[in-house]
């Protein structure tokens, strides 16, 4: 391979950021779309070229020998339209924020949970970890709210336990504020809920044990264990 610098070529390349923006704009531009997605009362005109590479569910729906492929229409029966919207938006822009939905920063936590589940269902690349990260940030703001309790319950009761990213996010926030959560009366609801979730309690205890050990004893070293 040649190592000669080719500055003249660099000037000819396109501004990558601009290109990304243009792709993002396609989300709202149905002009060249070749696939419709319906969910509840909402619908989107999207581009297979954008959607299919990011999710094998959509890929197979479009290329398999089923009804969807002939009609170029995928109707999502069991999903929440807002989650679907956020997912599609993510596919186009890579953004994961709630700027479109004002007012409900509060409910964002629940949306993250939904997003995470949907990412798992449709196998959308990067969406799951993005949702987990977002949930951690949301929790550190809203841990004192009742909704946090709801989210914990939701994650520990209904979400598949094979992906621990969401749980870890909630756990670390809970451990951080464990004194408040277990001391103040206004968190009685949280404590009541926790009582019904032995899995969560166990995980929380382990997490706390690690933290206590870390702050009171020097970390284990090889020479310690040898002794």
């Amino acid at each position, binding site marked *: 391979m040649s190592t000669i610098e080719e500055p003249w070529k660099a000037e000819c390349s396109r501004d990558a950021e601009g290109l990304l923006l243009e792709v993002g704009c396609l989300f709202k531009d149905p002009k060249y779309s070749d696939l419709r997605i319906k969910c509840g009362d909402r619908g989107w005109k999207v581009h297979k070229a954008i959607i299919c590479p990011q999710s094998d569910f959509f890929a197979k*729906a479009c290329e398999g020998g089923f009804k969807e492929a002939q009609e170029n229409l995928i109707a999502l029966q069991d999903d929440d339209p*807002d989650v679907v919207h956020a997912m599609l938006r993510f596919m186009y822009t890579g953004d994961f924020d709630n700027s479109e939905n004002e*007012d409900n920063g*509060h409910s964002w936590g629940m949306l993250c949970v939904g997003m995470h589940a949907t990412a798992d269902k449709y196998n959308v690349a990067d969406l799951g970890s993005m949702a987990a990260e977002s949930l951690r940030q949301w929790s550190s703001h809203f841990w004192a709210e009742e909704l946090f309790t709801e989210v914990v319950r939701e994650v520990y009761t209904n979400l598949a336990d094979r992906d621990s990213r969401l749980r870890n996010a909630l756990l670390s926030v809970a451990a951080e504020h464990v004194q408040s959560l277990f001391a103040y009366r206004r968190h009685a609801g949280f404590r009541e809920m926790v009582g019904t979730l032995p899995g969560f309690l166990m995980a929380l205890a382990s997490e706390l044990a690690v933290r206590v050990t870390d702050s009171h004893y020097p970390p284990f070293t090889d020479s310690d264990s040898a002794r």
Partner: protein
Amino acid sequence: MLIVPAGRMANGYKKGLNGADVDFEKTWGILEKAFQEIHTKNASALSFEELYRNAYKIVLKKKGEELYNKVAQFEENWLGNNVRTGIVKHLTAPLMLDGTGRTLNTQAERREAGEKFLKSLKGAWEDHQVCMGMLTDVLMYMDRVYCTDHRQPSIFAKSMGLFRDQILRTPVRPDSPTLLEILTRIILDQIQMDRDGEAIDQFLIKSNVYMLEGLYDSDQEVEDEKLYLRSFERVFLQSSAAFYREEGERLLKESDAGTYCRHAKRRIDEENDRCRSTLSEATTPKIQRVVEDELIRHKMKGLIEMETGVSFMVENDKLHELSLVFDLEARVNPQKPELTKAMQKLIVEMGTNINRNAVAASQATAQPAAAEDAADDAPGKSKAGSAKAINQQTVAALKWVEDILGLKDRFDNICKASFAADQTVSTAINRSMADIINAFSRGSEYISLFIDDNMKKGIKNKSEAEIDATLEKAITILRYLSDKDIFETYYKKHLCKRLLLNKSHSIAVEKQMITRMKIELGNSFTLKLEAMFKDMTLSEDLANGYRNHVRKLGDADPKRVDLGINVLTAMTWPLEAFKSASEQEGQESRAQVIYPPSIDRVRLGFERYYSEKHSGRKLTWQTNMGDADIKGTFPKSKGDKPRTHDMNCSTYAMLILLLFNDLPDGQSISLEEIQVRTNIPMNDLKRNLQSLSVAQKTRLLVKEPMSREINAGDRFSFNENFKSEFTRFKIGVVSAGNKVEGDKERKETEKKNNDSRGFAIEAAVVRIMKQRKDLAHAQLLTETITQLSAQFKPDVNMIKKRIESLIEREYLERIEEAPVPSYRYLA
């Protein structure tokens, strides 16, 4: 400040995640019905989303394993009940074996039925692939979640295993073969048809091979346990081996070698093509190996030994076919052992023939020679005969050299044209050439004679390039010769005669030859030969110098005998070349030859002149090697003028004739008297008298009584009536040219050669020991042989004897305490 939402969102998600427990049976029912549709090719009305969602829900509710088993069960049933029966239907009568393992039907029927079967199997396989592809799409979530977490093969892999078990491995009927066995048999049958030249549907077979390549022996899907490799390919290679073994044997019997080669090559190409078009590329090297084994590797020997095999090809110059044989063997073994062996055998055969012919030719002529030997002094008439015989031997020698060169050229040409100048083969050819040349005991002598003949006559009227080629020929053979010292002996002898008798056609070419030998055999080899040339040049100067010296003395006696002289360094020249075997005793008598005063004056004059120039050197006169130009005056007869003739004769003949100068007319001298007055050795005397008194054209003397042989008491007188039509003629003496040696001469040469070899060996041993001081016996042997290999191949026994002798003479001693026999150098 954020406002707590109305709960729509939260509820929405709850619905997604928290939906009521799935009714497995009901959900599976939906899926099963859809799968049924997929398998009957009615999928276009199905909603992918619905199926995906249902499978997803089941797996989400941790019923993945149940779903997995249900799907597997469904597939098993489908394959076993629907698909298999459809295929078995195509197993028609022509495909089933009878008791003898062969079907009764014709090939065409078999082919057609086979194709139907293959088609149905191909269809079933392809359908299965398509359907399972769709099922896999629908069950993607199950594969991703359940199968990954529980280390289950994907449902696709599982269903492929089911296809293998349900379709291929289940016996068609109890106690009958499985479809896989039948499939293998049918494909083999079709391939056999293809080999027999019948057109088959290659693509159809290839599709079935694809299927076997897509299936594995077990559900673990180990790469080298593909069903194709495990079941089909093995049988295919076995049956192909059997087929080609049989075909090869048949062809060796029925066709000729050239056809066989072409056929083998075609078969290999065919099998390669077949792998590409009909089977699998992965099989190519394996089947190639099988065909090469059966048609080439195991048959090479038979092929070469065929009546129309390699020796036939060589005899008839079938260069192209030889190249086919070469290509075939080169394909299986870069060493080409069989072909190499065959070529060597041929060369040895043909070379031995040449050697035998040469021996026969020399023996055919040896009889008169032997007769002459037996009665050397008796029958004069055999002389002409034996001279002719010796000549014939020379011809045999020349023929031998030409034949050997011809043989080499022939095989070189074959090697170049047919074997792509292959290194291995040409090395082997060279080795065999060396073997046959060295197997011929007269090789050295014959090569030297070949050069001798060319130097004397052969190069006359030839261009430089032609002469060059001739010299190159000689060098070519010389290269093979291992006993170079013997060759040197002969060459010296022959060169000596050429130089002294002025027989050489061109001294320049002689020198060219020496230069070539120097390059080829090294400096030490040509040292003595070059010294001979030097002597010749020096002698010329010396003779001229002497002539000037005489002229300056002012002694311008016109009757003075002019002297031409060659002063030869004693050790350099093989002077015995001039003696015949019968005159070994002549050494001491030579010095005592009595010269008449006119000659003796010249001799003494030169000796004086020479000792002035080089003091301390002794000149020994080799009278037996000289010749003389004399002018003879004969009395006029019947009124003619007196006639004079210029004659060239040997020095001895001159001495004899001078006796008659002083003799009164009509007087005669007896043999004994001549001997006493000249002191010429008796044998030489008889020989010279024979040419002077018996030979028709040079009968200058009259012998009494007249007979062919010279006997004691014979008397000689001047022949006044001598007549010759020439004014100049030569009085020949028997045995002057370079001829093949007689048996006695040969023995002597050999003996001499052995002696000089002995010296060379001793010198080498001493050289080595002087340097090494202590050395093991075996090592000493090897080093000695290495040192001497440029000159000759020493005989081990001879080396041992020489070592013994050196020990006796206390040059070496045995080391008593050494673990292996060793010697020590004694300074």
